[in-house]
């Protein structure tokens, strides 16, 4: 196969993928380029490669996850790695073992890659200081979710050809969203203009310093946008603590085909999932294959993660 030629691991880059903040534009483009090949592979009949044969990948998930975990699982397996997924929400941590001790224990088993999802911001950074293998951040607290941003970028490129010059709106619970943060950094880096739309109580402080324009009005925020990214609003945040009600949120911030008209004519919708239909997005709109990229995001997620695993595995 064409891929047998050894694409060397990213040169002069940190050996870990901890966030988009630490990534250079060269590295980001390299991952996206590499991923394009895997899109084709994943659509073919024979999906299995042996690039990572003999390598061990540990998926360390401290927080429940469906799509990210299965995506990394599949990505590793398609590249031929031995993949072990550890669901940490019911293990040693509950017995008082610290993250560092867990890391040391796993490190002693000589993994080549650790994929970590953790509820605390910065946990992958801490882990990366203590292990010898590459650490890939699969989402930490509300800080970063780099592979999600990369797969979003790949999805946009796949449809629009490029990111540079596009206008992208990210809408919803920005405050608690690592997806929003990673996307802000990556889309900015790749030359897009980013608008943030959220009610005041779900807008992080000083968000403008991240290089975005912030809006509380969908009409203004969506104006001439090419991409509309919606974020999940969790149940516990919509009953009075951050917002008056689900109904009121949907009225002002839920994406409907009416509101989508404020955006550019050929605007496309994205959502990292899981989706709250009827809360942040109209259910028909979410399923409309003419405007919704949701399924494609999941599909390309595997390709992006294959690229990351390949490039970061030493």
């Amino acid at each position, binding site marked *: 196969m064409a891929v047998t030629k050894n694409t060397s691991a990213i040169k002069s880059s940190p050996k870990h993928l901890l966030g988009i*903040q630490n990534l250079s534009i060269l590295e980001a483009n390299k991952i996206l380029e590499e991923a394009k090949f895997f899109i084709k592979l994943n659509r073919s009949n024979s999906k299995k490669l042996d690039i990572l044969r003999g390598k061990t990948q540990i998926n360390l998930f401290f927080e429940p996850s469906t799509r990210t975990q299965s995506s990394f699982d599949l990505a590793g397996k398609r590249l031929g790695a031995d993949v072990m997924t550890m669901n940490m929400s019911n293990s040693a941590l509950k017995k008082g073992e610290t993250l560092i001790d867990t890391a040391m224990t796993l490190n002693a088993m000589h993994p080549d890659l650790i994929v970590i999802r*953790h509820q605390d911001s*910065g946990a992958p*950074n*801490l882990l990366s200081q203590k292990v010898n293998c590459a650490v890939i951040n699969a989402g930490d*607290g*509300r*800080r970063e979710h780099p592979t999600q941003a990369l797969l979003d970028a790949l999805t946009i490129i796949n449809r629009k050809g490029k990111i540079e010059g596009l206008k992208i709106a990210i809408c919803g619970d920005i405050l608690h969203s690592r997806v929003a943060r990673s996307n802000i950094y990556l889309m900015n880096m790749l030359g897009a203009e980013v608008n943030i739309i959220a009610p005041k109580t779900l807008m992080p402080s000083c968000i403008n*310093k991240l290089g975005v324009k912030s809006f509380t009005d969908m009409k203004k925020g969506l104006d001439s946008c090419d991409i509309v990214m919606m974020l999940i609003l969790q149940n516990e945040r919509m009953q009075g603590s951050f917002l008056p009600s689900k109904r009121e949120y949907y009225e002002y911030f839920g994406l409907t085909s009416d509101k989508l008209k404020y955006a550019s004519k050929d605007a496309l919708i994205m959502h990292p999932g899981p989706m709250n239909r009827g809360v942040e997005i109209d259910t028909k709109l979410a399923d409309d294959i003419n405007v919704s990229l949701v399924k494609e995001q999941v599909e390309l997620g595997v390709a992006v993660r294959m690229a990351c695993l390949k490039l970061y595995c030493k």
Partner: protein
Amino acid sequence: MKEKFFINARIIDPSQQMDEKGSVLVDINGKIKAIGKNIKKPVSDQKLEIIDLEGNILIPGIVDMKAFVGEPGFEYKENFRTLTQAALAGGVTSIVTMPNTNPIIDNVSMVDFIIRRGRDKAAVNLFPCASLTKQLDGKLMTEFGLLSARGIIAFSDVTKTVQNTETMARIMNYASDIGVLIMQHAEDYELSKNSCINEGEISTRLGLEGVSPIAEKIIIERDLSLLSEYPCRYHINQVSSRHSLDVIKINKDLGKKFSVGVSINNLSLNENDIGDFKTFLKLSPPLRTEDDRVALVEAIKNGLIDVIVSDHTPEDEESKRLPFAQAATGAIGIETLLPLALEMYHNESLSLNKIIQTLTINPSKILKINKGSLAVGCDADICIIDLEAPWVVKADKLKSKSKNTAIENRKLQGKVLKTFLNGELVFNL
């Protein structure tokens, strides 16, 4: 003990508005016998010990109004012996110790224990605090009268705040009658929930829950309103933001009597120093913006802030080697308090006199203790400083049992050469 005669000193004693070349004579009881320019060498007496300072600076021993000793309960973090060593190496001769030990110092028998233990193990002046409320739970006041009678200097819930306004009103009302000192940590829990870092660009970037400066301001506003009704001796432990200073200024301008402290950390670091999740810089109150830091320094200059404290909080490495949100809060600092404060002199933010004042006579006045001054008759607690000596902070060279310094590798200028307690040499570099 021999009489001691310090010569060729630059004496800085803000309690006497003194900054002059001169000599200090300490009598055999460890009290200041004479101080100033024209002190003649006492007539030849074999017992006299002459100490030539060669132009170095002589100041009163430092009074640190906020430090944590691990005893009892947290001896693995710090004990009286290690705290003493760290303090004396930093020129600190008087320490107000915090009551958030295990068990908590909230009853008379604990006070007796801590005073006995301190007397036996600590070679430094200790002034223990008791908790403001029983079990630090913010609900029931402790026995202010009985505890004071046993030797408690002040009452504080350390890093906890009495949230209930009625409780706080009663505490201040009761305290105003018997004249005890209340030291408040200002933090509204509803606003600060789960947070460990200033709310702003850094908290947004790091994805950490931020605490708004309003959480501090709102408690200060509440307490200062109560203070009008119940004029007790009230001290704000540590302010951290410009917002709080605005409230403090308004109230001081109204003529209200209260005092204000600040941690040396908030004067010399800001939120950017947290960098890539440095848990040693997880502090309470949190480090805030550079604008806040500058405002705090300015507030010392114009007298809004009275005292600089070390907020010495030893934590073992294990409790810091965790994800930021889970890591313990606090940093050690008693040994580096003075050298770090001198940074503000070297970078021309504050006068030397002002710095020494906030570290010696000001805390002594608030505490109503006979320390922080070298006036004739005072205890000869003395610190000798080489103002220019450069050095680099290295955690493993510090004397505290815990090594969680917030200023590892910081280049400082100014070093403590010698410390005397009641005229006795207790630290010599």
